[in-house]
């Protein structure tokens, strides 16, 4: 199914603008992530698509060629996975998954067949008869997904589907979810505040901030060509280098760098993996923290810019805390972005 939103906004009765007028299109079979910090309006947008929130007048929501803007949630045929999973505690796993089919008034034999099929797909056969409170977090997550997909919805919506899991499980289930969503071959939109999750699962990521979609594109595109300081910081944790730009030269507290272009009136950003600690670097810094991360060390450097600047060090013999080191950044690794109007 193709989803198209035009001019969709949400203002609360008290005047809070949760979502500014937004355009969004999702193609058939595409998996789109709404990524942003909490309070950016991503969940509001998802709930408007589901029909759980009423958008402002003038908003339009199209499922293929149907205008569903005023259709109540129970008739939109969407599947939704809730952050808390919202599994019915008074029903077994099987009854939970079959609930949507029962509401469609399908014959019992067909419900059974469809539930069995979905149970298999999600590898839940062993838990079919269990009560919900006898399931682990990861199993609940899969039951919630199975329940949402069983009625063959036109669109699958997922609200922070992994956030209720602990860190170790979350990483394991991230890949599993990505594989399952592609197996279902369904148009899906999921909300997350975790950039790794968005990048690992989505075909396309829409980055949101303060009620607006600020940039939308493939994970690679967002990472390599951020259009604003916000996207650069949120996707890939770019750090701003506070200094004075003079044409293609950036003067920092710890030394000077060559820019890839004229930086006048622009902010300069860099990612930790592009800060190289080497004896012939033009910057001088003091080592504040050294953190071993398996394949590499993360080094906190002070004296280059206002804040501590993180650098990745891949060698075996990391510098020690308190040492003075030299560092450099290649011109092509520096990102020139429009100045943040809030600060300028």
């Amino acid at each position, binding site marked *: 199914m193709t989803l198209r939103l035009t001019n969709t906004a949400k203002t609360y009765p008290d005047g809070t603008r949760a979502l500014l007028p937004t355009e969004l299109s999702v193609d058939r079979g595409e998996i789109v992530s709404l990524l942003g910090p909490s309070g950016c309006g991503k969940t509001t947008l998802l709930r408007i698509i*589901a*029909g759980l929130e009423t958008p402002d007048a003038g908003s339009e929501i199209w499922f293929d060629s149907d205008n569903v803007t005023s259709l109540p949630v*129970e*008739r939109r045929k969407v*599947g939704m996975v*809730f*952050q*808390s999973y919202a599994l*019915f505690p008074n029903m077994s796993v099987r009854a939970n998954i079959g*609930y949507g089919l029962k509401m469609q008034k399908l014959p019992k034999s067909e419900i059974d067949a469809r539930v069995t099929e979905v149970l298999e797909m999600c590898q839940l056969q062993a838990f079919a008869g269990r009560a919900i409170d006898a399931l682990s977090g990861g199993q609940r997550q899969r039951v919630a997904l199975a329940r949402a997909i069983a009625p063959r919805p036109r669109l699958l919506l997922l609200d922070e589907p992994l956030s209720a899991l602990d860190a170790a499980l979350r990483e394991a289930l991230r890949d599993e979810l990505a594989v399952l969503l592609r197996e279902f071959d369904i148009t899906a939109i999921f909300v997350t505040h975790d950039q790794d999750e968005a990048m690992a699962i989505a075909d396309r990521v829409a980055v949101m901030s303060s009620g607006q979609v600020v940039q939308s594109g493939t994970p690679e595109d967002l990472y390599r060509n951020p259009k604003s300081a916000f996207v650069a910081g949120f996707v890939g944790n770019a750090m701003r280098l506070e200094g004075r730009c003079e044409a293609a030269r950036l003067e920092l507290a710890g030394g000077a760098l060559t820019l890839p272009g004229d930086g006048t009136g622009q902010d300069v950003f860099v990612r930790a993996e592009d800060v190289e600690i080497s004896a012939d670097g033009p910057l001088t810094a003091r080592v504040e923290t050294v953190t071993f991360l398996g394949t590499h060390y993360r080094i906190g450097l002070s004296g280059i810019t206002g804040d501590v600047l993180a650098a990745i060090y891949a060698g075996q013999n990391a510098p020690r805390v308190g040492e003075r080191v030299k560092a450099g950044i290649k011109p092509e690794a520096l990102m020139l972005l429009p100045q943040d109007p809030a600060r300028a």
Partner: protein
Amino acid sequence: MSNRTFVLACLTPLLIFSLAFLALPLVRLFLASGEGDAGWAVYLDILRKPRYLNTLVLTVLVSLATTFAALAVSTTAGMFLLRNQFRGRGILLSVLTLPLAFPGVVIGFLIILLGGRQGLVNQLTPGHVVFAYSVVGLFLGYLYFSIPRVLLTVMAAAEKLDPALEEAARTMGASPFRVVIDVIIPGLMPSLIASGAIAFATAMGAFGTAFTLATDIDVIPMVIYTEFTLSANIAMAAALSIVLGLVTWVLLLIARSLSGATVAAGG
């Protein structure tokens, strides 16, 4: 653990006292029921004499009717008050919980003002409707008394219902009616059972309301009072108390095991 020793040392005397204070009179009550002329056959008398048996049946029936009516009214009203913000909501809630402040005698008094011979309904209707002194009056009085208690318990429970459960049911195509059946009622069930049990126990034991209203009919607590003070039939009074207590206690125990743990505190 030293904490445990401290607690034990503090509480053992208190518990011994509580047990003596609570259990001893009950044992005495039970013994008293066998000390009459009829001996232990007094319990058979309850079943044999229509006066006692009919009253017992009536008391249980009125109490059950009160319980179910209070649950129905309180659940709908409670859900409505919780889900809707409107002007006057606070006042409405206060009015609904007003009967909490009045004793049973005053409730009986109110029913007489409403449905008695000089009552409002009698004055307003042409048919001269007097219901205060009948089973209807008793039922209304008990209902009046039960609604606020059940209402507050149900509202506390309904506040804790996860709204995502209802939303999940609706995304899967459930109508508002199905949501009530499949999500809201099951979610409130422990509180409904617990507060229903307390409403039943209260109705079974209500004395003030019954004493004010029941000129034509009798309920068990009144019979107990009459036997004890007026007929000085202490054995029968004790036997009836034991039976009443047993019926109520068994019901409370069942409710507590159904609704789980100490949730039966509500109400």
